Structure formats: structure tokens, C-alpha cells
């Protein structure tokens, strides 16, 4: 399988390396706007074609394309891949687009052109969240009654308005909170935003923390808390506490805990859940994610999370920002 990667930042490098480690997959083309990067990429990746513009990828004869550029450019790049006939098997890093309008168009394009489409909500491939999903689906805690979820990082902790730091302009909800929103949609189905508040901390116009209230089907109430200004979250972390009629489940990137009303408590760390893969880079879930996409392309079946799933996350994010008075 011949793959091209568009956008050679840290996620582009990570996916390129993992893809190359999967048998019968070869990264054959790279694309990046930066002249400096292109100059060195050609020397690092001998035999790989390096392009400036995504339209040039038509010369590379690829089976699939990974889009790992900054979020604002996802729409333009993915649209070009379809309209120029470069590839119909497309992986886009989260979030699918900058807003629901763009995401919906990409979802519809993917449906029209066929092929495999997938969005990089990698936490669906983490063993703790997978096991949580299985336990919830089996009704181990009974009927879910409420949940609270968070996505935190220390990326901008201690950074004040005087510091010259570039905060992602897409804001904390789209950049970090999207993981928890995707997981909530995966766990519970459709969500409706009831209330939302978004705050600026790092600069006057940035969106650095958020609090959201939602309702899922069956009257399940949920709360989200997002921030990239939280101390002692060296790595970004997402987590859930789900209260059910028969017990409670708490899960994050590292650990899963189950407390049932009969008093029993079970706890699993990653390695208790067989968190092993054929190739480890970053976290094991990155390998599982890429392997899932590749397997779906090879078998010709649909991948999850799809563009339709990703578009739903973008819809919720738009609704949050709208409720919080942050929509331009």
C-alpha cells in the first residue's frame, strides 16, 4: 500500500514512522509548505518524493493519504484530495475540520467518492477506553445516569498574558476537548449542548478553558471540563466518571476502575489490559489506529471513527462555542 503524508509536523512524522513499520505499507510521498522542511525531508527520506502543494500528489500514484496539517487547513487539503482524484482513502488528524459546515462537506464528499475515511481520534484505540466502552455496552454498571468528563494538559500552565507564546487559535475545545467529546459520542450516542462557558487565560482572545453541560439520549446528563492551563498534566489526559444504576466506572488514559453497588472494586492499568502492539511509538494506540485504517483499506470496509463521526464532533464544538458566545 502506497501512502502519502501531508504536513510533516510531529503528527506527520509519527504517522509516517508507524505506517512504514506496518508490513506491506510504504510512505512514498510527503508534502509540506515549509521550504526548510522540504529541503531536509528529501535528504532524510531517500527515495521518497517531496512536494510543496497537495495537488502535486497526483504524480505520486498513492493508495491513501494522511492529512496531518494544522486544523484550519484540513478542509482545503482533504477537499483537494477528492476533487483532484489523488486518493479516495483519506485519514485526517483530529478535528476533521475547523467547523461543522466544512466537516459536513467533507463527510458528504467522502460518501460520494467512496473509499475509506477516518479521523484521528486516537483515544478510541487506547486499551482503557476500549475496555470502558465494552463494559458500558454490556451494561456492567446498569443504565448510565450521569457522567463527568475532562481533557486537561499543562501545555500553557503558568503562561500569562505577557508571555510571547503561540496558543493554537482553534481553542482548547477543538484542540483538546474534542477527544472527550468524541469518546462521549462513542460511549453514549447523540449529545445536546445545554450550557457552555469558554474562558480566556493566556491572552485576551484565546480560548483556554471551558465548562459544558450536555444531555444524551435517555436523559443522561453530562459535564465536560477542558483546559490546557492545568498544573501537573505533563501529557494531555482525558478521563470520564460514569455513574450508573448498578455502579460507577472511572477511566482515563492510564487506568480503568469499576465500583459496583455490591461493594466490589476492580482496577486495571494499561498492562493489565494487554497493551501491547507490534511497533511502539508515542503510545500503543497510535499503532492500533494506523493498523485499523490500513486494514480497512486492504479489506475495503469502513473505518471508525469515520468522517461522519468526526463531523458530529465538529457540530458539538460549534454548538459549545455558539452557546458560550464565541462564534464569529
Amino acid at each position, binding site marked *: 500500500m502506497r501512502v502519502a503524508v501531508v504536513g510533516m509536523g510531529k503528527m506527520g512524522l509519527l504517522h509516517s514512522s508507524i505506517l512504514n513499520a506496518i508490513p506491506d505499507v510504504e510512505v512514498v510521498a510527503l508534502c509540506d509548505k515549509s521550504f526548510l522542511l522540504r529541503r531536509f525531508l528529501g535528504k532524510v527520506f531517500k527515495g521518497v518524493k517531496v512536494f510543496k502543494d497537495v495537488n502535486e500528489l497526483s504524480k505520486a500514484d498513492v493508495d491513501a493519504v494522511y492529512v496531518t496539517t494544522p486544523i484550519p487547513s484540513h478542509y482545503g487539503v482533504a477537499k483537494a484530495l477528492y476533487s483532484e482524484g489523488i486518493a479516495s482513502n483519506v485519514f485526517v488528524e483530529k478535528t476533521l475540520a475547523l467547523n461543522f459546515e466544512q466537516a459536513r462537506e467533507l463527510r458528504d464528499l467522502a460518501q460520494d467518492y467512496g473509499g475509506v475515511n477516518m479521523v484521528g481520534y486516537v483515544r478510541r484505540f487506547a486499551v482503557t477506553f476500549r475496555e470502558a466502552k465494552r463494559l458500558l455496552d454490556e451494561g456492567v454498571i446498569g443504565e448510565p445516569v450521569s457522567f463527568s468528563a475532562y481533557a486537561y494538559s499543562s501545555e500553557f500552565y503558568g503562561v500569562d498574558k505577557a508571555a510571547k507564546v503561540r496558543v493554537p487559535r482553534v481553542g482548547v475545545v477543538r484542540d483538546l476537548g474534542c477527544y472527550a467529546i468524541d469518546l462521549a459520542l462513542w460511549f453514549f450516542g447523540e449529545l445536546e449542548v445545554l450550557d457552555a462557558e469558554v474562558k480566556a487565560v493566556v491572552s485576551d482572545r484565546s480560548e483556554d478553558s471551558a465548562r459544558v453541560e450536555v444531555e444524551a439520549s435517555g436523559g443522561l446528563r453530562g459535564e465536560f471540563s477542558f483546559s490546557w492551563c492545568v498544573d*501537573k498534566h505533563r501529557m494531555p489526559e482525558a478521563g470520564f466518571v460514569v455513574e450508573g444504576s448498578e455502579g460507577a466506572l472511572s477511566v*482515563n488514559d492510564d487506568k480503568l476502575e469499576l465500583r459496583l453497588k455490591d461493594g466490589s472494586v476492580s482496577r486495571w492499568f494499561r498492562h493489565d489490559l494487554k497493551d501491547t502492539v507490534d511497533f511502539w511509538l508515542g503510545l500503543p494506540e497510535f499503532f492500533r489506529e494506523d493498523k485499523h485504517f490500513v486494514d480497512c483499506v486492504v479489506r475495503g470496509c469502513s473505518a471508525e471513527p469515520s468522517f461522519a463521526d468526526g463531523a458530529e464532533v465538529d457540530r458539538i464544538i460549534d454548538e459549545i462555542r455558539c452557546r458560550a458566545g464565541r462564534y464569529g
Partner: protein
Amino acid sequence: MVREEKVLLVGDNPFHGISHLSQERSRVRGDAPTNPEFAAKLIGISVENGADGFMFSVSEKTLSILRVLREGGVVNGLRLYAIVPYAYGYVRLAGEVGGVPGLAKRVIKEISLSGNFSAMAMGLKGLLKADLEDLVKTYLAYEVSRVRSSAGKNANLESVMLHQLVTDMCLGLGLDWFFRLYVDFMAKSGLRPGFNTGNFCLLVRRLREWGVDLGEVVVAAPFNRVGFQMVPSREDCEKALADLPGPNVFAISVLAAGYLKPVEAVEYVAGLPNIRGVAVGVSKERHARETFRLFREKLV
């Protein structure tokens, strides 16, 4: 059969506030181990109880610890194993300065300000000719000079190892030229080349394929009773270890990031072949005393 004493190293994860078991665990542990004075004290206690040295990622934090150890007269008695680059620091910096190009500019600026003239000359040549090999060598020379300027010229820097993220990324990308370049550069610098990896089996296989002498390098990789972070499996890692030509592996994550008690962990490591040594992180004075006393007693 010759029985060698294992090299026991203090690992630096607690000093960076890291627990690979869970972030919650590092939060519970508190800030004390991240204080350079306290970290240096823990290293001193570890040495008194059997540790031989310190394995650390080269960061501002660990360089501060080295300076404290130097001022206390402890550093020259230590066998130092440096890991470069401090990937987390650079990833965070990339986020702050606008991605990989911004990061490259920042590193070039730091090298320029470091006063390492030979590195600067090589780097300038590399930039002008877009010569990647010169730039890699410049960067490595810069990192080595940072360690030496903090630990002192007489410090016993035995090895400079490539950080796990870089080793494994280059491994996935199949950059054989990079591995050869790194090994050659370190050997010419009088340092043993090393690789920190999460893909021990694949690394060993590729180094063999690429003609890198496994006897000339050291490898740091997870080995523990519960198979924590052992890829693709504990059994495969044990088999690859047994097939090595000699004891050139440092077992890391031996306590499975604190999931195992030292007494549970040490028996497993003691039974492994081709282990050159062990790196273990400690976050309390009692941990330092008990862990290294036990490992020194059991690991012969």
C-alpha cells in the same frame, strides 16, 4: 562462566515528575523529587547503597542536578549515561514556537549562543550546504558539551544514548544511515553509543541487518516481570536478549513504573541473560536506600 557485577544506575523519571504507570501517580508523589537539591540528595543516598551512576535525559532539570552533584563533589564518582534529545521538552517547545521549523530556528539560536565554536562552524557549514549529517553532528556535539559544562570535564560520561522517541521514529522510518552516523560520531568522540528503545526486538534485528556491531553499543529497554511496555511481547524480548553476543543491555522499567515492588522485580531481572545493568528511579530517601541495597545484593 564469568560473573560480572551489574551497573546500577539511578533513573531520572521521578525528577521530571514522570510516572509511566499513571499521571495520577506522579501527581500524588508531589513536587519533592523534581527539586534539583533533593534529587541530588537521592542520587547520593543511592550511591551510598550500591548505585554506580545516573541515567538521565539532558534537560535543564537534570543539568541543574549535575551541577548540584558537582558542587557536592559527588559527580566524579558517577558513571553517567546521558539520553538525547529530551524529546518531551522539544515537543512542548515546538508547540510554543510554531512547529518544527520554529523549533529548528530556536535550537540553532541556542547552539549559536552556547559558545561552542567548533559545533557552530560545523552547523553553519551544514546549514549552508543543507548537509544533514553535519547538522546532526552539530546537535550531538552541542548536547555533549551541555553535559560536560554542567558535570565538569572530569566527569565520567560513559555513553550518550538516543532518546526512545528518536530511536523508534528512525527505526520505523528505516533510517539506517542515521544509526550508522550516530554510532560513528559517538565512537569518534570516545563515548559508547547507546539507544533507548521501546522496540527492543526490532532494534536488535535492524542493527544486525544494517551491520552495526551490537557489541559496540548499549541498549536501554523495558524488562520486567509483568511485560509492561515490552513489545511485541515479554517472551519475544527475552528471546532477543538471549540471542545477543554479550551483556550490553540496560533493563529499564524494571519496577513497571512502580507497579511492582523492588523485591518482586529484582528476581526476574537477576534471571535474565546479557543484562549489563539496570536503571531505577527513586523518589524518596527510603526508596533510594532500600532499592539499591536490594539490587546490589541480588544482581551479581
